[in-house]
């Protein structure tokens, strides 16, 4: 009799444990799914082009998805962070968008620091490609330094001519 009770009690205990483990796992699984759903909903992948000794390199980053302009500003911040000094110290004074989808990016003067022709060429082209490829709605990009529109960043490259090249090639 005692043996029967002990066996029944053991079986009940095993069943309760199995049920407990099952519910525990079920609960965890939901949270994993939930986490994944949140990730795909709020993080966005961007491709940054950067000047390098070989020309251009690319880097992928994930940013929390926000408004277009906010995303744009955060992407530019990340772009600047990857540059060598003194361009690395550039501050963004403003990012604007007009009705024609022209983007105005206002930089501090560090962005227009003196550099070689090659360095300037790949800096400007990397900047245009980064913005142009990640935000297809952009129709035109104007670089401002200390709130003034510039023809050239460091005296060798025409920003307007280079933008046309990038836009024509990529869009």
């Amino acid at each position: 009799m005692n043996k029967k009770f002990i066996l029944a009690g053991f079986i009940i205990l095993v069943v309760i444990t199995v049920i407990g483990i099952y519910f525990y796992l079920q609960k965890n699984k939901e949270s994993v799914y939930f986490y994944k759903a949140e990730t795909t909903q709020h993080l966005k992948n961007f491709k940054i082009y950067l000047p390098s000794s070989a020309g251009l390199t690319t880097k992928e980053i994930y940013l929390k998805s926000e408004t277009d302009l906010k995303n744009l500003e955060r992407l530019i911040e990340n772009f600047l962070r990857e540059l060598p000094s003194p361009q690395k110290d550039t501050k963004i004074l403003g990012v604007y968008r007009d009705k024609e989808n022209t983007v105005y990016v206002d930089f501090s003067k560090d962005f227009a620091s003196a550099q070689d022709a090659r360095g300037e060429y790949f800096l400007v082209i990397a900047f245009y490609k980064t913005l142009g490829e990640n935000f297809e709605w952009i129709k035109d990009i104007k670089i401002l330094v200390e709130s003034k529109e510039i023809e050239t960043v460091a005296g060798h490259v025409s920003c307007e001519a280079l933008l046309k090249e990038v836009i024509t090639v990529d869009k």
Partner: protein
Amino acid sequence: MIKTPRYMVKKFLIIIFLILLTPVYAQDNRKIFLKSGKHKDFYRFVFICEKSEITNSININLLNDGKIKIFFPDIFEIEYKGRILEEEDNIRGIKTLKKDKVLIIETSDIEEIKVARYDSPSRLVIDAYFKESVERQKVLKSLSILIDPGHGGKDTGFQIKENREKDIAIYIAKTVASRLTQKGIKASLTRASDEDLTLSRRMKIENSLKPSLFLSIHLCSSDNFYIYTSPGIKNPDIMINPFIRKLKEKFSEPVYTEKLPLFLLEKSVSPALMIEIPKRALSDKNYTNRVIDALVQAIIEKFALVEEKEKNE
């Protein structure tokens, strides 16, 4: 006072001496000293005369067969290297014929002569240019070069202490232009002072002048030379090789070349190149002057010959 025979003899001898001395002086007045030298592109003949009237009266003709005919106002003896030129003689292996008032220097490969007269001492200088060098000079004269000193105005370019790229670029551009002008090449600048000049404005100047060569001068942050050309240019080697050779010949720094679609190179209607000079030029004037020498030589000696070859073809 009674004149003694001895006194008379003395006086007579003095008179005789003076009479004899006069032709000696006269002879010296009729002597012209000749010096000559052979240079890379020309012979130089210098006739040193006693009086400027003589120098100014000498006429020079270049004959069709390349001989030089010199008419003197009178019959003179011509002294060359301590000897008097004979009727048939030679100077530096060149035959000379002298008859009465005429001296003919029997050169054959002379295409052009330049004559100058100077004082102290009074002399006539004839530079007789070889045929080849005259043709080369003609080619050089047909060349025009537009030099673009980078940056300017608010755009200082690279700066080390008080030395700024824009100032060095204009110094190099002005000196190169001046040296080329002396050689007969028409040289212009996009900017001649410290002024803001947009890339578009520089290009407008280039498009209107249509030079044989457009050369944009910059400095770089490294110790290398960089020569940039447009990717669209068909045969860049013809244009850049003279520069590469000259820079490699005169400097130990590496010379890199690259095709880069820079606005000034892409939009230029003429063969265009941009040269970046090592940063050392910012603080070392002697080094900058060596760069100037190399650029001038590259343009004249190499590029001009290429132009000549192209024209002949």
